[in-house]
């Protein structure tokens, strides 16, 4: 493999073939090729259309509730005794997570393309809820594919989607989790090519999804970059976010890529531990391969069969990762750490107790690395963490893990 060199123009990625260095691309069945190529053209046009951008900004302001605050987590900072910690409060968005930023962009694009039916995949249900929300708002039918295992462990979100008028189809093939839901959504798309828009929830999949989802999520980093300069008069020393597919992370990271003084940390879920076969750390514990339309790091066996991921957080329970993260990992612009289920649980409780914020278990993975990072960067330093979602959805899982009954 070529040894990657650090590019100096991060906005040059992906290239015309949808590649971030060696990663990305478009690996889909021929039936879908005309559709993804059409999507690429339509997205490029929309991106460069001031009317589209202005409409999107309007909905982000008045419906989603942007900009989200950048909050100085004073007690947590004091407790850790190192750098000052700021939370980018994505959990305060409508629907309680960053997912809606992307869904709002994609629903406007789907309408612009004349599509009349929306499909989506979901793991924890956050993207499913965000998809059901925007389809309710714009009056389009929505089918959400969700692994049967996840349907069982995320019942409140299933009910939310139903209330919002979406049909949730449990997927029983494979391990019946997020990757199988994504397979089933692709099967639906290939069957309903004329009218259906596939609303992918993370910065992965065939080009243009990784770039498009990143662009819609980059509002996180763009706001945070401005807000931290207003608060501290300078750029942060580090930014940190959890990474499953990696959409909140790439949204936070991307506007900081050219700021060489800003260290970038992604946190993967290492489940029961990297030494076990129960984790979801694609970069740290996987190797490059092709799945779901893109080339990226994957958890796979020696024969190239995809392995089931494990994380206590359903939103990180995926054996792949967005291709831009694979690229940032290889070129060394971002560092990827890991966090076990137990570390995430401890951070979940600490954040609730010290800051009065119940974080999503996904976000708790990033929180769990703060003691280490705050110490490394030291007093006088500044860290921005993406608090990607709120943890109300996780209280049953957490209670169960702590051996309590609700």
């Amino acid at each position, binding site marked *: 493999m070529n040894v990657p060199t650090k590019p100096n123009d991060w906005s040059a990625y992906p290239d015309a*073939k949808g590649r971030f260095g060696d990663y990305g*691309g*478009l*690996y*889909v*069945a*021929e*039936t*879908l*090729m*005309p*559709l993804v190529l059409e999507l690429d053209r339509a997205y490029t046009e929309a991106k460069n259309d001031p009317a589209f951008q202005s409409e999107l900004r309007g909905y982000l302001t008045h419906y989603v509730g942007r900009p989200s605050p950048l909050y100085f987590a004073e007690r947590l900072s004091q407790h850790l005794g190192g750098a000052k910690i700021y939370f980018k409060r994505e959990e305060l968005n409508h629907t309680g997570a960053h997912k809606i930023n992307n869904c709002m962009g994609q629903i406007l694009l789907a309408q612009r393309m004349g599509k009349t039916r929306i499909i989506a995949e979901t793991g924890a249900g956050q993207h499913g809820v965000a998809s059901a929300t925007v389809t309710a708002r714009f009056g389009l039918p929505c089918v959400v594919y969700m692994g049967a295992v996840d349907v069982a462990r995320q019942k409140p979100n299933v009910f939310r989607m139903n209330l919002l008028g979406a049909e949730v189809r449990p997927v029983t*093939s*494979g391990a019946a989790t997020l*990757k*199988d839901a994504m*397979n089933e959504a*692709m*099967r639906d798309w*290939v*069957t*309903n*090519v004329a009218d259906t828009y596939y609303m992918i929830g993370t910065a992965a999949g065939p080009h243009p999804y990784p770039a498009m989802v990143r662009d819609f999520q980059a509002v996180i980093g763009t706001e945070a970059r401005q807000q931290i300069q207003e608060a501290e008069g300078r750029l942060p020393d580090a930014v940190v976010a959890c990474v499953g597919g990696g959409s909140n992370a790439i949204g936070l990271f991307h506007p900081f890529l050219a700021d060489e003084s800003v260290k970038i940390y992604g946190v993967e879920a290492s489940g029961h531990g990297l030494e076990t076969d129960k984790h979801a750390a694609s970069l740290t514990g996987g190797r490059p*391969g*092709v*799945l*779901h*339309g893109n080339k990226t790091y*994957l958890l*796979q066996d*020696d*024969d*190239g*069969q*995809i*392995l089931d991921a494990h994380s206590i957080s359903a939103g990180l329970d995926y054996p792949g990762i967005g291709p831009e993260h694979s690229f940032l990992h290889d070129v060394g612009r971002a560092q990827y750490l890991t966090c076990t289920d137990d570390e995430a649980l401890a951070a979940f409780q600490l954040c609730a107790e010290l800051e009065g914020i119940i974080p999503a278990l996904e976000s708790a993975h990033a929180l769990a690395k703060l003691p280490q990072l705050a110490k490394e960067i030291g007093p006088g330093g500044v860290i921005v963490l993406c608090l990607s979602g709120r943890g109300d959805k996780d209280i049953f899982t957490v209670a169960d893990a702590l051996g309590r009954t609700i």
Partner: protein
Amino acid sequence: MPTNRIDHRFAALKAENRAGFVAYIMAGDPDLATALDILKGLPAAGADIIELGLPFSDPMAEGPTIQRASQRALANGVKTRAVLDMVRAFREQDIETPVILMGYLNPILSYGFDRFAHDAAEAGVDGLIVVDCPPEEADSLVDALDAYGLSLIRLATPTTDDVRLAVVVRRTSGFVYYVSVAGVTGVKSAEASDVAPAVARVKAASGLPVAVGFGIRTPAQAAAVARVADAAVVGSALVDEIEAAARLNENVTEKVLSKASELAKAVRSARLETA
């Protein structure tokens, strides 16, 4: 050994003025030994070309039937190397029937393109269909396959317009596989009246024979396609037979080969009936 079994077979079919019957089974389903028996029996049952499924954990273009077959094969511990060994064993008795491996890119990428092309050619494989590798991403794979004389069989679909078709047929050989319905394998069925003009279009653009598949389950459907295409592919209907026979503890090989014979007969006689 014929220099190119695929070209040879289509030339022979043309000389006989009939379409070919392409039979698909999944390697290692219901188990490796039985799958090898079935493979060995298919030419005598009337299969002119054989597609052998390479199991994959995430077969995104397959309907439930082939998804389950893939899971059964993987549960049996079937590895890519074992699939190649199956073809090698088949070649001990048959050096004429083309064998095409059909699967997904990641196991091949994981094996290594060059090593895979080398080992597949040596085992007696003639071509490859890689469902999730469109022409845009295929160059390095085609380079490897070319070096060992293997064909990358391309897929054309109802969504492939003329502009796209020119891209699809670049650097291809053997034949083109026309996917007759927008959908996954074994679920929807195509109308023969829609298939005929599509086949003509693909033939004109590629200059290659056209096999049609993805919606053919019955002898009547196979015959209808055989009247307008160079070959008719049946997969899910055979795999369903394997699954049902295994579940009922029947003789799997006998059942599936008998089903294959029925379909082959329908394909072989299709043009005689209309003549």
